[in-house]
């Protein structure tokens, strides 16, 4: 037990608590306050980007509607995609969940660089203002990927888009290196790598991807901005540049970004399933190492987004095989989760419901991903609604379901109050049914040949599109149930107590909401946290937390 004898160098070293309002709630260094700031801003951007989606569905409810002009429609889907990826899913999973949970789970008082954490958050609201403000100068119209040469010919709003995504990129890079240093250096004594909670594993890999891949995107955005502003040729084919370079560099970032958007959700799932199945997680190391494998392989599959961009055939083949191979570590996780549920003593509370929703929709999206990885199939499906359906099954069915699972799970820890279970179940079923009703039919109309990114369509797709639009409105409305539940809990929510779910990771070994210093004494960790049925593996934790029993 040599590890346990690590000196408590920082344990007595505590920053004084903030006193003024600004220090406490605005420019706070406290990871928990910063997490709440991320939750609020990403929530706001989620509403705005969601309303853009509803506008698009209003336009698409009939074959030749005039709800939006063609230009407005292009702007709507471009800003919707950019905002959902960079202003909602990435920051809520890393900035919000990572900040709220990771330091608590490793038994730390804060992240390694609290000042940088605060700085990285404050880059983020200006980015949102720039992105949504781009409508004033003519928002981008070439989709969230902004392929040149179209992106070079657009009005000034696209430069605002570049600046916005650049800021998000810098913020994400800083958060990534901050989290990785925190996880490597600040784990509680005794917490070896294989005793870390699986959410921390997922956050570590995500952090690595964030600061490696995002720097690459920043460089591409800088080049696009310079080309647009100073007329310097990088991407313009008429002047010797190459639009394909942008695609390579962009996807070399954006494919790892797909895993930045889903690995933390995997982490959330891995925490919730053992808690509600009351069983040790099946294949702890398999889940942990498959995260790492996914992280490394994600840098080797980017060109599968470019099968229709004129790549040589000898380039397409390895990318096709590698893309199919990356489904293997993902499959390892899915099987481990199902095996954990198998013969478990399952309590079907709201977090687990969302996890089950995640498992079914994400697996479905993963399988259509295999279709798209196959070059011949992709060439047929690439520009159709099949891709839209696939993307939403992994990013909505995967990430957003994972985010809601995490919100229902950690809400009591964050606020100290429970959410209402009946409203939560109503939210889940409305969301799950309307989600599938919205995106499942898109597979068929895509295979029949309805092109994506077009404001009008052939009337033969009319009935299906009307059905999709109505479902999309219900899906949007289902979010109101969560909003009502969240607001209601502030006043009427039952007090949660330290550990309402009877979970075993360190964040449940302290009061809810956690005090400013998180831990009175830094706990000592003796084993991995998932051995349900065994005594809790911690020393220096107050007995009342060790004795807590689940209420559900």
């Amino acid at each position, binding site marked *: 037990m040599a590890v346990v004898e690590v*000196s408590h*160098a*920082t344990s007595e*070293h505590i920053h004084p608590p903030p006193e003024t309002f600004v220090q406490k709630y605005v420019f706070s260094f406290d990871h928990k306050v910063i997490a709440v700031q991320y939750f609020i801003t990403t929530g706001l951007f989620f509403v705005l980007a969601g309303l853009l989606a509803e506008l698009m569905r209003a336009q698409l409810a009939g074959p030749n509607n005039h709800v939006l002009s063609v230009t407005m429609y292009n702007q709507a889907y471009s800003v919707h995609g950019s905002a959902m990826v960079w202003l909602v899913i990435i920051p809520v999973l890393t900035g919000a969940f990572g900040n709220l949970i990771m330091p608590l789970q490793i038994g730390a008082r804060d992240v*390694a*660089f609290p000042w940088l954490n605060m700085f990285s958050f404050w880059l983020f609201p200006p980015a949102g203002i720039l992105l949504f403000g781009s409508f004033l100068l003519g928002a981008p119209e070439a989709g969230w990927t902004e392929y040149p040469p179209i992106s070079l010919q657009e009005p000034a709003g696209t430069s605002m888009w570049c600046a916005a995504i650049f800021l998000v990129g810098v913020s994400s*890079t800083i958060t*990534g*290196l*901050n989290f*990785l*240093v925190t996880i*490597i*250096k*600040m784990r509680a004594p005794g917490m070896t790598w294989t005793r870390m909670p699986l959410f921390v594993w997922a956050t570590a890999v995500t952090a690595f991807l964030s*600061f*490696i*891949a*995002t*720097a*690459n995107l*920043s*460089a*591409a955005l800088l*080049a696009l901005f*310079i*080309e647009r502003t*100073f*007329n*310097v*040729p*990088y991407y313009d084919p008429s*002047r*010797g*540049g*190459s639009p*394909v*370079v942008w695609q*390579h*560099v962009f996807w*070399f970032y954006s494919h790892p970004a797909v895993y930045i958007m889903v690995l933390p959700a995997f982490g959330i799932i891995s925490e919730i399933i053992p808690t509600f199945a009351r069983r040790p997680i099946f294949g702890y190391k398999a889940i942990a190492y498959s995260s790492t494998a996914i992280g490394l392989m994600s840098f080797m599959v980017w060109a599968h987004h470019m099968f229709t961009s004129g790549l040589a055939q000898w380039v397409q083949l390895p990318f096709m095989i590698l893309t199919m191979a990356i489904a293997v570590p993902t499959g390892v996780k899915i099987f481990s989760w199902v095996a954990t549920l198998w013969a478990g003593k399952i309590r079907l509370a709201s977090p687990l419901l969302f996890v089950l929703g995640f498992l079914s929709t994400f697996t479905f999206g993963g399988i259509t991903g295999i279709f798209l990885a196959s070059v011949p199939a992709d060439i047929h499906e690439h520009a159709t609604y099949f891709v839209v359906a696939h993307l939403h099954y992994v990013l909505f069915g995967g990430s957003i379901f994972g985010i809601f699972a995490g919100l229902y799970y950690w809400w009591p820890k964050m606020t100290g109050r429970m959410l209402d279970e009946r409203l939560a179940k109503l939210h889940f079923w409305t969301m799950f049914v309307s989600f599938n009703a919205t995106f499942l039919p898109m597979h068929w109309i895509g295979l029949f040949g309805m092109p994506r990114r077009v404001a009008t369509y052939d009337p033969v797709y009319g009935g299906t599109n009307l059905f999709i639009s109505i479902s999309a409105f219900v899906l949007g409305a289902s979010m109101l149930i969560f909003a009502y539940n969240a607001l209601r809990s502030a006043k009427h929510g039952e007090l949660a107590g330290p550990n309402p779910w009877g979970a075993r990771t360190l964040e449940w070994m302290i009061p809810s909401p956690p005090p400013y210093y998180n831990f009175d004494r830094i706990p000592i960790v003796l084993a991995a946290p998932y051995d349900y049925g065994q005594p809790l593996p911690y020393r220096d934790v107050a007995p009342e937390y060790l004795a807590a029993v689940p209420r559900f």
Partner: protein
Amino acid sequence: MASHAVTLNDAQYEEQRDHRLLGFLFFLISDCIIFSSFIFTYLYLRSAAPVWPPPGVTPADLYMAGVNSIVLFGSGATMHFAMESFKHDKHLRFYWWMMATILLGSMFLGGQAIEYTNLIHENTLWTTSIYGSSFFSLTGLHGFHVFIGVCFLVVVLNQTLSGTYTKTRYFGLTAASLYWHFVDVIWVALFSILYVWR
């Protein structure tokens, strides 16, 4: 935060230094990725171009850049000697080696300014061709890093003179020296692919 640092005991200082060192290394890796992205763009455009350099472009002069490279690599050596002197408590030597590093760094920037002026006279601009866009963005990005590096060195030298760093606590110096060596190493790559490879 300066007053804060004074209150740390040795174990706390070492822990904080370890965190900052690792964080700084990660920062350098992500900075390296930014260069890689521009280098990839340059290599892609160059390999896709029918002739290189594009017709009508006078490429930058190898000999002048060679002299300039020696200046920059020399500054890497003086930086190393400065750190060694500091670790052995020879403050006067440290001061002169640091001054030499700052001077050589500034000379490199001056050389680059002359090079840019010559190219602009020959109408090789960053807007005229993909040679210009790649050359000026790569060397400009690197020159910007050298400029930041010189400022960094001036700041840490000033801090040393006012007694911020002691024989056991000198993370700021380590960071500045790492950054300076990093900028040097990047130049090896840029010099090879922009000047030597014709």
